């Protein structure tokens, strides 16, 4: 478990390092995720400790978003002024995005989906 946590932190650390050094526009943890994936592919399996640590964190993924979300209270005035526009946009645009993505993937991947169902 501790070993797993260390592996996750090291991947994040090197992810941050690469992003800062090469001035890439995305955050370190995402690059860290790619590093860990490559590491697991080279290793040919997931070490028990890494699996335990990752399952532990992913179980509580939703909780980890709370502190950033409380930050909405800082923007009370802008939200009050453009509230209707913001909420309408969020609902309509999210629905359209789900619709387009779901239909495109369902159509393009139909062959693989059928195969998976027969397995």
């Amino acid at each position, binding site marked *: 478990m501790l070993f797993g946590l260390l592996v996750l932190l090291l991947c994040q650390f090197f992810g941050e390092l690469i992003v800062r050094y090469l001035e890439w526009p995305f955050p370190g943890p995402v690059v860290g995720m790619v590093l860990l*994936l490559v590491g697991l592919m080279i290793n040919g399996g997931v070490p028990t400790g890494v699996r335990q640590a990752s399952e532990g964190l992913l179980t509580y993924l939703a909780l980890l978003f*709370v502190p950033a979300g409380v930050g909405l209270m800082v923007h009370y005035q802008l939200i009050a002024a453009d509230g209707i526009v913001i909420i309408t946009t969020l609902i309509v645009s999210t629905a359209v995005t*789900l619709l387009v993505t779901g239909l495109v993937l369902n159509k393009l991947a139909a062959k693989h989906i059928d195969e998976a169902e027969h397995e």
Partner: protein
Amino acid sequence: MNDLSTLWVYLSASPIMSIAVTLAAFLIASKINRLAGGSAFLHPVIVAIALIVAFLTLIGMNYQQYFEGAQFIHFLLGPATVALAVPLYDHLERVKQMFWPLIIACVSGILTAALSTIALVMGMGGSRETVLSLTPKSVTSPIAMGIAEKIGGYPSLTAGLVLVTGAIGCVIGPLLFKALNIKDHSVQGFTMGLAAHGFGTAQSFAVSSVAGAFAGLAMGLTGMLSAFILPLVVRFLGV
């Protein structure tokens, strides 16, 4: 009495209070969500945020003071993002088989999310800051904040709206899959991860590990591609 007030000053300055409040609010919110039959309208994260904002307002603590303690929970988002590589590795074979359909679906999803947002906000007469803060709404919050900063929105407003988008996606997604007869867990997961990032991923893990793995993949892929595509879209449209 004097002792009690010094104690209070000490407690509100240490991280214990913010962390305990965050965990308690999340537990209460999860309980409320269960009592409401797991309705995504009362998403635990949104209810927990509302409870904490109410509590902080009540005791007169500002966001900076709260975040000084709560940052220890916030920090775990980093390793949790890295951890998404594990379910992804478990389902690598399916990801490889579906590689091109996934990339095409991802780019269409990103463009749909950005263009519909810009058209809707501008059509309804929202301010320029609102347009730019909302454009990265389907992108996972750390990347979305970076994009908002780059194109001229408010990063902290974006972070909050990204969460609201996530909760909305969790409500609409399952209804839409039913209406469109989309049953495959990999398609459901990928769609949820693209439109509703971490929230969609957390919800997909509750459906199945295949759905969760594809949601995590969609979240990472959408984040990385958006970081390149969105600044170009905004520049091209001259927003």
